[in-house]
């Protein structure tokens, strides 16, 4: 499968009163057509910052200090705002974590889907409306004519999240970034929403970057996994290889601390310590080293390695498991 999005050497800082926060450090990965790529890690590890950097959604305090994000032959990080506007929502779309916060509370959901369609493919109102209904049907929303007139507060959480995805997919983008699309939903609703996203990858060849902290969810839906810790990518692996043979000590720690993976409470092993403060001047090369039981002199010697240890399997560690 060919690369749809190729992020290379992306570094990002936030300027704050207490100095620069080095949020991303040389992040690199690729998202492919017809595939779900899982971006996993604890909160604050830079998953969302990566997504926002790619789509130009960062605030004024953020500064991209290096890197590129190639998408359909162009570097998204170097586009003018107007050029990015024509790509966002049409070729590359994002689903936000909380659909209830992302939707406009005083506009019917049908109108909100139609807005996106009208913005990118101007057409007579009846055509736009029909496309919006199609987008709802694709999300298996029953009775779309009636539901399209509903306001967000009249829908259940799962239904609102489907509307959020319908908005993102209304213009049939090539790439979808889904930022915790099912957090806060029930397991039953979560499974139904993930089924829909999965179906789109098979039916339309959609490439998906799924941001999640839920390893069990990643395990059941993703084709490849990228693990982030404190702004660095520590391991990239195909799903099978990752869940059967993780190599980075942090990946191993994440799996041991996942309730879904434990047979009993004694089996559950929390990761010691917390991620370092990213505004520190003396950040180590390996930002996991201070939490790592395998740390040795070599770990502090220089920048993280990127070692290919198998097909599509890369680990950024001097002393992998």
């Amino acid at each position: 499968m060919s690369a749809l999005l190729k992020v290379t050497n992306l570094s990002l800082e936030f300027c704050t009163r207490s100095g620069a926060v080095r949020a991303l450090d040389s992040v690199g990965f690729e998202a492919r057509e017809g595939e779900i790529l899982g971006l996993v890690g604890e909160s604050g590890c830079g998953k969302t910052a990566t997504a926002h950097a790619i789509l130009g959604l960062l605030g004024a305090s953020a500064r991209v200090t290096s890197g590129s994000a190639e998408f359909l032959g162009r570097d998204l990080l170097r586009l003018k705002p107007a050029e990015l506007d024509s790509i966002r929502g049409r070729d590359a779309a994002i689903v936000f974590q909380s659909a209830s916060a992302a939707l406009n509370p005083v506009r019917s959901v049908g109108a909100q889907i139609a807005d996106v369609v009208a913005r990118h493919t101007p057409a007579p109102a009846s055509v736009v409306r029909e496309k919006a209904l199609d987008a709802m049907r694709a999300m298996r929303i029953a009775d779309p004519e009636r539901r399209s007139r509903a306001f967000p507060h009249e829908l259940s959480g799962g239904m609102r999240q489907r509307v959020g995805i319908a908005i993102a997919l209304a213009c049939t983008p090539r790439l979808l970034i889904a930022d915790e699309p099912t957090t806060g939903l029930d397991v039953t609703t979560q499974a139904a929403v993930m089924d829909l996203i999965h179906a789109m990858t098979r039916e339309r060849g959609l490439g998906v970057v799924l941001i999640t902290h839920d390893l069990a969810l990643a395990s059941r839906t993703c084709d490849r996994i990228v693990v982030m810790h404190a702004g660095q990518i520590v391991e990239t692996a195909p799903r099978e290889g990752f869940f059967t043979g993780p190599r980075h000590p942090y990946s191993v720690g994440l799996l041991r601390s996942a309730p879904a993976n434990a047979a009993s409470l004694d089996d559950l092993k929390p990761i010691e310590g917390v991620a370092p403060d990213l505004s520190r001047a003396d950040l180590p090369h390996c930002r996991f080293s201070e939490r790592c039981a395998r740390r040795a002199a070599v770990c502090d010697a220089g920048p993280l390695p990127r070692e290919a240890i198998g097909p599509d399997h890369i680990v950024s560690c001097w002393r992998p498991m």
Partner: protein
Amino acid sequence: MRPVLEASGLVKTFRAGRGRFHAVDGVDISIARGEAVGLVGESGCGKSTLARLLARLLDFDRGELRLDGASIGRTSVGRFAASPQRAHVQMAFQDPTASLNPRFTTFEAIADPVRVLLRPKDRAALEARVFAAAEQVGLSRATLPRFPHQLSGGEKARVGLARAMAMQPKLLILDEPTSALDVSVQAIVLKLLGKLRREAGVALLLVSHDLHAVRLLCDRVLVMYAGQIVETGPAEAVFAAPRHPYTRALVSAMPRIGVRDEGERLDGEPRSLIDPDPRSCRFLGRCPIERAPCATGPPPLRALETGREARCHFPLGGSS
């Protein structure tokens, strides 16, 4: 042995237009001393409302609630809040960041309920309680003068638990204790709850839609659907072989590591709880095995085998 908390026939309805919304509809629960019970079900099924009824944070319409054998349903929620019995049932809330007062230090956060409910005779007695509770949940002395924004996620979760544990409760009710927490902190909290139960002998009611947390921590599980308990039994047995079709769908949707999932899916939404049809099963319309009798007589919660009950006319086979 006498149960620590016992509820029978609890009903809570809310006004909804011209009708009544039946949030909790005839629930019986009994929690033994030191037992860990899980309450699971989808959002809107009434599990949080039920937790608030049991914690006496919300008055119920009908039913009976006993704490250690003594009826506590007659005392209004406002009066109960100041009564000595308040200390015996404590509740810890979902998001530690949202439930801690940002202007209270850790010490003050833990000391506040101690002052109100236990009225320690002097500063030394107050400090003894606070220090003991902090130690019990693994908070170091260094964290006591700090404010919530100076604490890590794991420490904030511990403060929430220390507040409750300082009361030396007999029952701790936890509403989604792990869902707002980071992956690495979830494991810490689950292990800590297991330890509190073992060492302090406190009974736990874990309200959660994280079925894995319930599986790891609880002896027994109650499955709730549309305001009613639809299945009960030992957690391991219920997850391994559900008897109610709703439980089966719930368990099948549970994400598992290393399992590519093609499980059963539940379509649609529950029937409206505004004046629900008293003749039909509440699961009708979403149930994969429904038959004619399901629309004409509501199934009772029936005992199947030792320790297991299901509210279904056609319970699933025990060993599937």
